[in-house]
């Protein structure tokens, strides 16, 4: 009786081990040819963005360009990029007043009663294209991912619209597209940067406050910029590996 149980357990154990091995092998069997365009090497780039807050004038050109380029609905909550205006009282820096009327699609109007001790500045926001994205980690179906070139993308054909990722993003960069009921977000204009163009927001920015950067390209001026400026990412304590680097970031920005 004991002997039988031992044999059974051994055989069952082997079977389970073999199942895992077979499943692993199966991954390779079913894997097709990577649909990788020949002229773009997905492993030769590592994309990010530099945002120079000291150059942002709050015109909202980037927001309009992003919506035009990526066919983003002009509805509340549907933003791949937006601009926030911070009003920081030097006596109460923990409680800045933040506004972003329609994501700054039409820019900003003057503050009604600007106080004397108030510091005002504009902060463009977009997906930080984190290297260790919280949004990617929570997706139950593998519909969102960090691409090998460092861009966080959504596979709309697999997204269930469960909204886990919308809640997981600490930067509020995701929304549900009301047309498809799937998650949507900044793609860092993946269709443009893989063709050698810059993103629509960078193309439209009149002051050069936004710059697309390829961290793997040694000739990219970003390396010089990072050496000569004090840059920072949003919420570094979360260790998301954010790749939107801000120059002149105030401590009041959340």
């Amino acid at each position, binding site marked *: 009786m004991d002997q039988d149980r031992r044999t059974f357990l051994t055989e069952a154990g082997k079977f389970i081990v073999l199942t895992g091995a077979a499943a692993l092998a199966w991954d390779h069997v*079913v*894997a*097709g040819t990577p649909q*990788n365009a020949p002229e773009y090497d997905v492993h030769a780039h590592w994309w990010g963005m530099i945002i120079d807050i000291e150059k942002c*004038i709050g015109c909202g050109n980037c927001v309009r360009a992003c919506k035009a380029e990526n066919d983003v609905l002009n509805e509340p909550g549907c933003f791949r990029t937006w601009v926030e205006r911070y009003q920081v009282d030097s006596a109460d820096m923990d409680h800045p007043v933040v506004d972003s009327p329609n994501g700054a699609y039409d820019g*900003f109007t003057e503050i009604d009663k600007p106080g004397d001790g108030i510091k005002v500045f504009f902060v463009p926001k977009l997906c930080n294209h984190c290297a260790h994205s919280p949004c990617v980690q929570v997706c139950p179906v593998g519909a969102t991912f960090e691409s090998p070139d460092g861009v966080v993308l959504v596979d709309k054909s697999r997204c269930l619209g469960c909204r886990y990722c919308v809640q997981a993003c600490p930067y509020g960069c995701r929304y549900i597209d009301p047309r498809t009921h799937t998650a949507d977000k900044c793609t860092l204009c*993946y*269709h443009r940067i893989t063709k050698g163009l810059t993103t629509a927001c960078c193309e439209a920015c*009149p002051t050069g406050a936004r710059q697309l950067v390829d961290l793997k390209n040694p000739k990219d001026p970003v390396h010089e910029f990072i050496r000569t400026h004090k840059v920072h990412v949003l919420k570094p304590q979360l260790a998301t590996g954010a790749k939107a680097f801000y120059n002149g970031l105030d401590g009041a920005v959340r």
Partner: protein
Amino acid sequence: MTGRPSQHQHVYRVAGLFAAGFVVFLIVRWALVPADFGVYGFYRGGALADARAIPVKYAGEQACVDCHTSVVDERKGVRHEKLKCESCHGPLAHHARTDENSKPRALNPRLLCLSCHTELKGKPTAVIPQVLAADHGGDGPCTECHKPHRPKIERP
């Protein structure tokens, strides 16, 4: 005694059921998981190609300056030199692709300028010259005095 053989049979039945279940699992997995899933990671490899397939709407600065060389010359040495064309003129990839048949839209020579140049608290003065529209040059279009490609008023 028939006790021991029947116990073996029991084990074989379980193993057989397990094997059948595994085959069903493989078939279902084959049907549901896309062929290119897992090429790069826990996602469909073809999603990268999908993300690239979207048509471009902003042609990019290079496409503009390839043809409009006179504007490039006109803008030399002024503050608007570094502006990308489509920053003001809007997305024009369709125009760049299809020549004259697709004209760029007319621009509002007052609202467009003011969208950047309106004085606003928090707007860095070192970065951009700002005016209050009510106090500056009347209600007419800005282009009455300022040439958009060479905005600084140059007196002979």
